[in-house]
């Protein structure tokens, strides 16, 4: 298991698509830091206050960015037959878990590093203040995930959100495994998580929300932000994440382990 995991992790983090996705994410994060206005750190970092071009681009395209590094690998190995070589050498289950972890980690890195970088850049130029409950710039109120921590320990709040986004990035990147090697072209494998999340966003916005403001944010694409329009309690975030993880593992396992060569 260790050797195949090491190989998969090396491949996941040493390919051109990983570098391109990471560079694009970092560019969006830096653009957000450049374009952001004045104000204390708690009100300007892109995860809390996605209000400009950089954050809009990042949070609209993140499902593509996380799938780009290594989501396509299983499809490619099946198409160019290199899967047969691996299958002859290691157990399929071990291969699946190694692949899953490599895709998860590469997606998580591409998602969390730009957000962390954005926080660190903004921390260089913006004052560190604790948000006051009655402050006009206060983006998070009661009902938001970790809102009490936001008002008591901002750094811890931001780092926990980086971890949450790492998990989101990983879970959504692994959604590429669900389609296995069915699509004709690699591009469709990479775009699958994005299409699913976009479709969910449209359907939920149309049929669940209607034209009015609602109590909770349920669109998975929006739940990667700490500062959503409606409240994003932890139980919604983690139950949706768990649902996606279950789909990834269940269908991915079936595609990789149970499927015939």
């Amino acid at each position: 298991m260790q050797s195949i995991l090491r190989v998969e992790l090396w491949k996941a983090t040493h390919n051109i698509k990983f570098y391109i996705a990471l560079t694009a994410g970092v560019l969006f994060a830096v653009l957000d830091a450049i374009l952001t206005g004045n104000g204390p750190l708690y009100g300007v970092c892109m995860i809390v206050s996605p209000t400009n071009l950089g954050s809009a681009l990042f949070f609209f395209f993140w499902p593509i960015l996380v799938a780009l590094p290594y989501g396509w690998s299983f499809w490619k190995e099946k198409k160019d037959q290199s899967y047969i070589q691996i299958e002859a050498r290691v157990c399929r289950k071990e291969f699946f878990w190694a692949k899953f972890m490599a895709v998860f980690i590469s997606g998580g890195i591409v998602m969390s590093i730009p957000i962390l970088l954005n926080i660190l850049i903004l921390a260089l130029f913006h004052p560190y203040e604790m948000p006051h409950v009655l402050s006009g710039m206060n983006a998070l109120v009661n009902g938001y995930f970790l809102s009490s921590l936001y008002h008591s320990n901002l750094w811890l709040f931001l780092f926990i959100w980086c971890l949450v986004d790492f998990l989101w990035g990983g879970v959504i990147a692994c959604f590429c495994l669900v389609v296995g090697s069915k699509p004709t072209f690699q591009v469709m494998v990479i775009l699958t998580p994005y299409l699913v999340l976009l479709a969910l966003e449209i359907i939920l916005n149309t049929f669940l929300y209607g034209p009015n403001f609602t109590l909770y944010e349920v669109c998975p694409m929006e739940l990667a932000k700490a500062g959503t329009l409606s409240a994003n309690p932890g139980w919604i975030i983690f139950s949706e994440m768990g649902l996606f993880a279950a789909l990834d593992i269940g269908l991915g396992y079936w595609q990789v382990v149970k499927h015939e060569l």
Partner: protein
Amino acid sequence: MNYKLLQHDFRTGLLRKRYLWLPLLFIIPCYISSRITTALGMPGTWLDYLCFFFFGCEPIYLNSLDKVILPVQWLSLVGGLLLVNLDYLLYDLDNAGQQIIVRSASRTQWFISKCMWNIASTMVYFIEMAVVAWFFCVIKGGESTLTQISEVSVGTYNVAEITLQDGGKLAFAAILMPFFTLAAASLLQMALCIFIPPVFSFFFVFMIMELSVLLPFPVLMGNAAMAIRSGILHPGFMNVGMEILANTVVMVGSIVMGAIGFRRKDIIKWRE
């Protein structure tokens, strides 16, 4: 023009299963539109339904206080077309198309045939959209005419300053301009596929579209595909002449760039 080549592209490119799934994409805008017409107490016409697809959103002025709300429905319609037209060029090189390209004896003609197919595919997309809108209109008891009810249009666009003179201007801004813009965007995507992998090509063109939502400049082609920003409907907004010029430049540039790039491309080693 080699008509046999065009015939092949129309037959293999337009008779694909994915076109059967498109109505699902169009049902949601129609549903929202019908909800608006029901709320206004008027059935709405076919044109009212059609105009709702590409109405887009008002210019977003980015500042540090307001959260950005993107027009996801408009973006999904744009992305849907880009996805439908994304992989046919590669598909036709992978299959019987390899035989066709050998027999056509001209790479330029082969590529121009693909461009014609691309525009035809965009047309099919809009025709399917019109058919779904017509069905919704008929089911909701509306008139299947290309006239408009101003109360419905103003209610849909939610902008009181819009003064609608006739349905023709509305149809131009909400149907013809989006068609022209999306055809240009789709051609640009196909031309880029020759130089970069398709996923980056899709990402690049879709990013231009999203930038158009956030930056209201006529040179960013997506602005022309949003009726609400059209200078025809909303004086003082986008200059329509400039938008047509920008889209024409993109269209012609994509065809020329793609044809030149494809002539020099080593298609034997070309993999996605």
